[in-house]
């Protein structure tokens, strides 16, 4: 332990400033991560981020596993929405190995991604409620999310981590009757949306709490590498699904909603509006999904060598751009994999700037409006 010189501790009046910990064991933070706040009264004078509590060394571990073995590892990087990891990784591997993915598999991937997106948005509804004290919202949202997890369980066998994608397609075909059930679930979720509106988004106290909090201008957002709904809520219409379509998103008809106020409330509303678009996409997928094979055969996984090269594959997740930079040297294992998590720049760097001079009661609202997922930092 480092001892502080006496004269220094004299100047630092302990009654003027004090330290407050948001995390790692705090109801206001959404993971194993901590912001250490230097408080002056109820204003934040300085913020320090304290990551590393969940560090498991994913990127290094991947270099020691076979290409297909990594599929069981990477979903753990993002807990609320694990599927983006699998899809981004598989897309990268397929591009390097030159595998053509069947149309049906691409549709199934879109279905899985959009279901995961809705589940993550429901999670963020629960974040709004938890941050402002509206505890009915988390309970309703997590309850509705469970119906999505039920369908995931039927499709993949896993509720949270699915490990369903595979280079060349998906592991299993859609079971009989699953799509009908999905369409029923979409009807149900759509019928719930007005309830959420009345409870959360039209709530005058919630609007008072969140409007004007944590304003993020479009320039600041681009400067700090903030993507996804947070960027779109600041008025920049950028969505990888539209700008650089992957899978079959160019065959689907959907809009990018725009709120554009840049404060916490508009970020919450942005997610709520995008959830409707996801439901629209899923309905189209159910109608348009073709018959055919669900996976392109790849060689024996123990002998599966990906040709040398590099590729950056990216997916639009519920939090922003989720990317995998994959380097292969032609071996049975990756040479290097770098993961770009969307929360990394917002939660670890921009937070230090954004939270200064904020009040303590705005901190959880800011964290949940940016939908920060601390496992992203520690890879």
């Amino acid at each position: 332990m480092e001892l502080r010189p006496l004269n220094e501790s004299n100047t630092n009046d302990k009654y003027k400033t004090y330290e407050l910990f948001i995390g790692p064991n705090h109801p206001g933070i959404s993971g194993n991560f901590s912001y250490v706040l230097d408080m002056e009264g109820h204003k934040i004078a300085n913020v320090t981020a304290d990551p590393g509590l969940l560090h498991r060394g994913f990127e290094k571990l991947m270099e020691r596993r076979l290409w297909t073995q990594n599929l069981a590892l990477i979903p753990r990087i993002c807990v609320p929405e694990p599927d983006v990891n699998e899809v981004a990784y598989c897309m990268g591997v397929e591009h390097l190995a030159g595998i053509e993915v069947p149309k049906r598999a691409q549709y199934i991937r879109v279905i899985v991604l959009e279901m995961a997106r809705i589940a993550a948005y429901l999670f963020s509804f629960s974040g709004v409620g938890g941050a402002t004290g509206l505890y009915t919202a988390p309970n309703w949202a997590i309850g509705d999310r469970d119906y999505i997890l039920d369908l995931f369980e039927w499709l993949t066998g896993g509720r949270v981590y699915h490990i369903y994608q595979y280079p060349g397609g998906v592991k299993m075909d859609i079971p009989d009757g699953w799509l009908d059930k999905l369409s029923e679930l979409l009807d149900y979720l759509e019928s719930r949306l007005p309830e959420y509106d009345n409870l959360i988004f039209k709530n005058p106290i919630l609007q008072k709490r969140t409007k004007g909090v944590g304003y993020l201008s479009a320039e600041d957002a681009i400067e700090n590498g903030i993507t996804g709904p947070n960027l779109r809520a600041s008025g920049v219409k950028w969505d990888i699904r539209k700008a650089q379509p992957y899978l079959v998103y160019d065959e689907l008809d959907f809009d990018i909603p725009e709120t554009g106020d840049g404060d916490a409330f508009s970020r919450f509303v942005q997610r709520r509006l995008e959830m409707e678009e996801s439901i629209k996409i899923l309905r189209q997928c159910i109608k348009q999904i073709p018959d055919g094979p669900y996976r392109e055969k790849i060689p024996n996984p123990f002998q599966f060598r990906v040709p040398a090269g590099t590729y950056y594959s990216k997916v639009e997740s519920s939090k922003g751009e989720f990317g995998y930079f994959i380097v292969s040297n032609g071996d049975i294992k990756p040479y290097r994999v770098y993961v770009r998590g969307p929360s990394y720049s917002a939660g670890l760097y921009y937070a230090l700037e954004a939270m200064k001079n904020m009040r303590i009661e705005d901190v959880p609202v800011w964290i949940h409006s940016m939908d920060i997922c601390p496992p992203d930092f520690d890879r």
Partner: protein
Amino acid sequence: MIFLKLLEGIGVGLLSLTVGLLFMGLARKITARIQRRYGPPVLQNFIDVFKLFSKQSISHGFAFDLGLVAGVSALLAAVVFLPMGQINLFPHNSSLIMIIYLMTMAYLGMAMGVSSSGNPNATIGVARALTMMMGYELPFAAVIFSVYIFAKTGSLTNIVAAQGGGFLNWNMVRLPFGFLAAEIALQGMLGEKPFDMAIAPAEIASGPMVELGGKYLGFGMLQHAVGIYLETGIMVDLFLGGASNIWIFVTKQFELFFIALLINAVLPRFKIEDGVKFMWKVPLLLGVIQALIVVL
């Protein structure tokens, strides 16, 4: 005779604890149903208190112990003076001012206790609780003023007696603005949303409760239980015409508590300054209007 009164006082204290804990259990169940959950057993809070009092606890010094004990005992002392149906231990001495005074003592005791723990979260929570108290005491004082002028007495027993003879004689009907103001103030007194800034978990990790463990947390729960009983009890005596027996009294209390719970379930919490502003705008205005009506 004094010994008998003492026994009766202990009985009333136990009654308030039991009813308060039962209300807390029912609150958890009702809130759970609104939130589409099953919820814990109704008697869960009794189980919790028994468990907590059987645990080893960490003290933070003499002020900590004293503050928490003072918190519960001041409220228990206040309950003794509350007329509840046929149970009225001091019919000639049930001054409302004294009850309010004892209630404030309880919160100050709690404040002293938890802020001596040295945790900044607890201190912020206590500061918020006292600020909020400033918010709801003012409209409540305005309401009490109108009730005093209207009933021409300061004794709860006489206020209850003046409301006898049917629903239309209740102060709820006669002083509707005052009742509304007191209802909003009650929401703040109970610490239910949107006025629960003192224990905001996402912001200050449950505030005053953060350093309480074991027996101390048990004391905290008991204080909350007696607080619910006392605050709803005052409202029943002031506005719902008291009661002819204890069962009706508790039922009326529960009705008030139930309304508070429903509001609690669908609102987020205010910021502290917004909460106080709201209290000084809406209920205070209602209280003053009521007082003006009564005086003129």
